[in-house]
């Protein structure tokens, strides 16, 4: 009778310990999962931050990229000058440049003289003020930089350069493409 009682107490202790161990394990697993969730949400923030930083720096330099820049085609070398004629043709072949700059949208918007918004196509160019070079649906804020937008014009057979004030605007992409 005494032996039976001892066994019962022992079994109870083992059960208590097993429950305790399971509880401790579950506690650590939950703490670990919480830690991972916090960690990975920070990681996403970091990645977004890097993409934004990339876009910010790119916005200041994109106008000097050979696909956009005026070079010396409007007199001497100009910094932050966009060749509108070249950009219109780039727009027509933009599929080739998918993921090249790591941004989802690139837009050049004429800001002076102020006119009603009109998107540029080859048919209405240069009587327009927004050149949408890449346009994807995107809700992230635009990052921009002031540039001069130059093109060749002709008047009574004489070719001249026309430059206007514009803004280059960029939306950044998330993930691998950024």
């Amino acid at each position, binding site marked *: 009778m005494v032996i039976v009682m001892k066994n019962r107490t022992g079994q109870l202790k083992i059960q208590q310990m097993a429950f305790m161990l399971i509880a401790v394990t579950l506690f*650590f697993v939950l703490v670990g999962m919480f830690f991972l969730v916090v960690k990975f949400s920070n990681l996403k923030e970091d990645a977004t931050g890097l993409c934004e930083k*990339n876009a910010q*720096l790119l916005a200041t330099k994109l106008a000097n*990229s050979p696909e956009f820049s005026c070079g010396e085609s409007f007199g001497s070398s100009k910094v932050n000058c966009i060749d509108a*004629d*070249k950009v219109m043709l780039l727009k027509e072949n933009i599929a080739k440049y998918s993921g090249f700059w790591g941004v989802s949208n690139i837009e050049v918007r004429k800001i002076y003289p102020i006119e009603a918004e009109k998107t540029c196509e080859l048919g209405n160019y240069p009587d327009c003020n927004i050149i949408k070079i890449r346009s994807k649906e995107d809700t992230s804020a635009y990052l921009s930089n002031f540039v001069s937008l130059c093109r060749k014009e002709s008047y009574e057979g004489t070719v001249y350069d026309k430059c206007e004030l514009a803004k280059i605007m960029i939306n950044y992409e998330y993930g691998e493409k950024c």
Partner: protein
Amino acid sequence: MGKKAYLQISFAWLFAIIVGAFILFLAIFFSIKLINTEQTIQDAKTSKEIGILLNPLETGFETTKSTSISFPAETRIYNKCNNKGTFGRQIIQVSQKSFNKWSETNIDVGFSNKYIFSEEYVEAKKFYIFSKPFDFPFKVSDLMLITSSEKDYCFIDAPLKISEEILFLNQENLLVGNCSTQSTKVCFKGGDCEIKVDYDNKRIVKDGEIMFFEGDALMYAGIFSNKEVYECQVKRLMQRVDSLALLYKNKAVFISEKGCYSNLDLLTLSNLANSLEDSKDLFIMSNSVESIENENDLGNCKLW
């Protein structure tokens, strides 16, 4: 006689020890995994940051720019390149030393619009980045030349404009004359040097291998790179030349409607760029590049 001694451990103790050891094992295992993941994340972030920090180094109409990047720990920057797709891809991998061991790196951070020239990997806490525009004949891109602060390059008998440019850069690990014994010697007129540049014949001999160049930007690129990286990046640059040549060809047609005429043989340049096998073919392109450049400079309507 025959009396044996037994260790008296109750089942409860045995159970607790086994399960406790298992829990401890799991905790240690996941901690190590987490530390490794953290290190990989750090490496990937650093790679991305390096790429992003290269953006301000893009030149406008300046000729060269030099800057440095420092890391808190000993760092290796692996430079990889592939030329698949329209423009190929610049790949950066970073490995950092912690507890005297290099972190294992297998995360590729890629950029399509960057061209980095360096050895297969560069190792230091501080790196110098020297950027120089590559024109062929129009501006193609800025070449980023990465060197370790622990490796000095000493230029011997360099042409005056190269010596002046290096002195103007004021980059600590680039020396003109006065070579130390540890520095890597770059000779322009032969001699016992690690890197030999034949400036007139536009070729570089390094580690027993020959690289060909056109223009000073590619010459510097060849000096600071290994052959594999150099050839791959030259091919990527030519992929961009191909696209830009077609863009300028379309622009020529477009502005001719406004009475602005230019008649450059950009289609030939595009075809030559497209068919480039290695840097040896740059020589074939040089005549075409030179004549296009002259025609554009002399024309009434400059395309670039």
